[in-house]
């Protein structure tokens, strides 16, 4: 039996070009075995196609049904993608929401050795100053510094104390002098008044004695 110029299954499935199809048909005209093989292929195909279509037990749910209902975000995204102006409007709305969020939350961003820290509102922590580095001294050096500081402090304190005492002493002396003078003045005035009163009383008694005499 001559070989078929092309696969008979391709011929059956209509996968050949018109030219190749013609070649196969010319070959079939001369080959009984080829016709028999093609007959079996066609019978197989017809048997397969004899299967009745399966009826759907129920219709496929439409996307308009509740089960297919898109989420609000999906609808919003779909609405945005319709045209440019809507996209621009959507972008503006998104920016407005963003700025409103910033205004409401009052965020602050801080960076220190521990890294970035984002805080919101008045509760934002105040950055603590970094501690100054402490130099390392020997014990002897520490004692020497301490002695120098104490000596300097002692001399200064004594000078300040003497100056303070001198100043307070002068002030106290002046104040006492003023008070003594005031008391003396008051005493003299009181003496004069008392004397005046005594003289008046004596004169009165004298007048009374004369009357009674």
């Amino acid at each position, binding site marked *: 039996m001559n070989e078929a110029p092309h*696969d008979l*299954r391709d011929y059956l*499935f209509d*996968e050949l070009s018109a030219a190749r199809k013609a070649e196969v048909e010319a070959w079939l005209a001369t080959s009984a075995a080829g016709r028999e093989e093609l*007959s*079996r*292929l066609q*019978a*197989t*195909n017809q*048997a*397969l*196609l*004899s*299967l*009745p*279509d*399966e009826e*759907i*037990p*129920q*219709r*496929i*749910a*439409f*996307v*308009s049904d509740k*089960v*297919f209902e*898109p989420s609000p975000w999906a*609808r919003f995204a*779909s*609405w945005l*993608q*319709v045209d440019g102006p809507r996209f621009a409007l959507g972008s503006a709305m998104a920016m407005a929401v963003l700025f409103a969020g910033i205004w409401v939350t009052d965020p602050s961003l801080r960076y220190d050795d521990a890294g970035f820290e984002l805080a919101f509102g008045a509760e934002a922590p105040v950055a603590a100053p970094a501690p100054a580095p402490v130099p390392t001294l020997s014990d002897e050096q520490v004692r020497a510094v301490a002695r120098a500081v104490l000596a300097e402090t002692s001399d200064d304190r004594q000078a300040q104390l003497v100056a303070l005492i001198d100043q307070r002493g002068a002030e106290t002396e002046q104040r006492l002098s003023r008070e003594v003078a005031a008391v003396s003045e008051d005493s003299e005035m009181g003496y004069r008044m008392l004397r005046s009163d005594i003289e008046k009383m004596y004169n009165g008694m004298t007048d009374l004695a004369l009357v009674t005499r």
Partner: protein
Amino acid sequence: MIFRDVEDRDLILKARRGDVDAFNVLVTRWERRVFSYIVRSVGDREDSLDISQDTFLKAYRGLRNLQNVERFPQWLFRIAHNETISWHRKKRPEPIEDSELERATNPSTRRENAAELTVVVKQALKSLPEEQCQAVLLKVYQGFKFHEIADITGVPVSTVKSRVYSGFEALKAVLAPARSTA
């Protein structure tokens, strides 16, 4: 047919813009073919309905990813194919009873009526390896070209041809056995 294709493209474009009714029309047009393909591969009608439902849901959600609307049928069947493959992986098909297989493959079996032929064809399809069965279904029942089946199943055209040929030869042995020369 051309008019129908144009209408499908228009419906797809409308559905992409959120027109739910347009997609509903697409569902109505394609649900029978999709269900038929799935049920012949899966066998169980209830499971096939669920798979069909999932197929159209995924199609609706992924419609924006469809690059070429002219290839909507291949794209839709690729989703259905993948869903079917997933089903087969989750649920191993029941083994065919030896007596049924013997009956289906016995050339002397008399096919007295269409109902019996239907049973034989179903059993013969069920006896095929899954990949061959899928390829035959897409070729014979859905009429896709080899390159379209390659697009749907994600394998080279040569693999598709091999699967279709092998499957078809096995079916031929059952459904159109060679005449005995003895």
